[in-house]
């Protein structure tokens, strides 16, 4: 009489449960499998070049020499440039929409900002080739060279296609990510925090500064990291405007190359196994970086969603 009773389930129910369970586990398997698949293909390159792969500047398929440093460099410079531009603007958009705009205005502008994320990458690239790059070449780069030319970043011939163009286009593409995540975490800040600040006589800006931003800080950091992740892996638009030359030059005007771009351009031309293997190794590095970045970014965003961390009532 004191046994504990169990629920029984019919066959159909058990099938549904197992089916959904296997799909859920499938997501984990998919992630691991993707990593393994790439590691397996990249193995010849990893064994041949070791750590030298990421420190060598020479990329010469004819001589079977493969070093990924120029691509890593181009990826990092364009991504950080994009972050520098998109993070403050994205955060500003989020603050404006969440804390200041009226609700109807908020819906319309919020939708427009989301549309920025909906435009396909290849269309940004097309616009970059025919609108952005020529404008940079004739107007922006000469101007920058004239006024800021004492900094090595802004020296050299204006070309249009280069790291500046790549960084700018990436900034546009990651801005909606940063804005959306920042909005999400700011919306998770309890209204009580805001009211407490206002009740003490704070102005709107002071309320945002002392009650909203500290509370949402780690989530906003997470959003910026997700933006960075997107910038690092973005392929088409960068491929179309970065100039595609495996050089490491200080000038932002100079043509460069990115990790994703070299994969996109050379993958179908990789005529022998080591060449393909080297390209896949670049992909593997990109996979690893974005995986780690996303992991920590999600941790930060989740921590905000789950409750207060840091930040207190004034």
């Amino acid at each position, binding site marked *: *009489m*004191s*046994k*504990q*009773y169990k*629920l*029984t389930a*019919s066959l159909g129910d058990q099938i549904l449960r197992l089916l959904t369970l296997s799909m859920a586990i499938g997501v984990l398997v998919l992630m691991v499998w993707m990593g393994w698949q790439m590691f397996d293909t990249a193995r010849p390159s990893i064994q041949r070049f070791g750590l030298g792969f990421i420190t060598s500047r020479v990329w010469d398929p004819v001589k079977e020499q493969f070093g990924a440093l120029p691509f890593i460099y181009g990826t990092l410079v364009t991504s950080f440039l994009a972050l520098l531009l998109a993070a403050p603007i994205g955060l500003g958009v989020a603050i404006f929409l969440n804390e200041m705009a009226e609700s109807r205005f908020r819906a319309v502008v919020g939708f427009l900002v989301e549309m920025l994320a909906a435009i396909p990458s290849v269309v940004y690239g097309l616009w970059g080739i025919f609108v952005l790059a020529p404008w940079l070449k004739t107007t922006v780069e000469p101007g920058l060279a004239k006024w800021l030319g004492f900094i090595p970043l802004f020296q050299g011939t204006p070309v249009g296609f280069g790291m500046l163009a790549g960084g700018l286009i990436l900034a546009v593409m990651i801005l909606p990510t940063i804005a959306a995540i920042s909005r999400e975490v700011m919306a998770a800040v309890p209204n009580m925090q805001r009211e407490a600040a206002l009740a003490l006589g704070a102005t709107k800006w002071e309320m945002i500064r002392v009650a909203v931003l500290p509370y949402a800080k780690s989530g906003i950091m997470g959003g910026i990291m997700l933006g960075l992740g997107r910038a690092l892996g973005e392929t088409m638009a960068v491929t179309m405007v970065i100039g595609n030359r495996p050089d490491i030059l200080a000038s932002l005007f100079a043509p460069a190359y990115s990790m994703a771009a070299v994969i996109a351009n050379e993958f179908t031309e990789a005529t022998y196994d080591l060449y393909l293997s080297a390209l896949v190794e670049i992909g593997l590095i990109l996979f690893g970086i974005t995986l780690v970045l996303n992991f920590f970014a999600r941790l930060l965003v989740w921590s905000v969603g789950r409750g207060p961390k840091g930040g207190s009532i004034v």
Partner: protein
Amino acid sequence: MGHTLSVRQLEAWYGSNQTLKGINMEIASNHVTAIIGPSGCGKSTFVRCINRMHETLPGSKVKGEIILDGESIYEQDPVVLRKMVGMVFQKPNPFPSMSIYENVVAGVRLNGMRNKKTLQDIAEKSLRMAALWDEVKDRLNYSGMSLSGGQQQRLCIARALAVEPSVLLMDEPASALDPIATMHIEGLVRQLKEDYTILIVTHNMQQAARIADSTAFFLNGELVEHGPTSEIFTNPNDKRTEDYITGRFG
């Protein structure tokens, strides 16, 4: 016809919290039995044990025995059991994706009945028993959510009746309704006992006095007293029952 229920040494836990501590109770058929008691006394858990809904909550545990018409409910598939023991919840919860008609026949149809004529007959019969037919017969294809709160609750009663249970559990069915809708539901309960064994959880003692043949008083997971309603309210055996119904605590 309703069935008798006998509950023996029923214990229930939610997490580490024991909500029922050895309940023994006989429930007569074709009676309205009211379960009263202060919040947290285990009265909701008690009725949820009878159709084995309590066990669906994560972290829950049950011991003891409940005999429905001579057979242990724990020997049966809970899904089958719930066709015999219907339930009406505190808040009306019609299925939002379904019309009034689909709501009423949901239980029968999802268990395999396909015949359209039969389904229509069941819908009409159930809605009539729930005293809702005249109000909705012209708009059976409207969403169930288009009805008022009291109508929604009667729709939920009709939905439970359509499965033809022998026992009907009602967990504070009128607590979310206004007085007029409450009156409708109470009238309905009195009629339904012709055909069903009814257990009704209520925190409203006047309601228990109005509709119940017998009343059980729960306190801290124990059954303090169970007897004819008139006796419980006029001449309780236990001091604690008297304190509760005279409003001295709870």
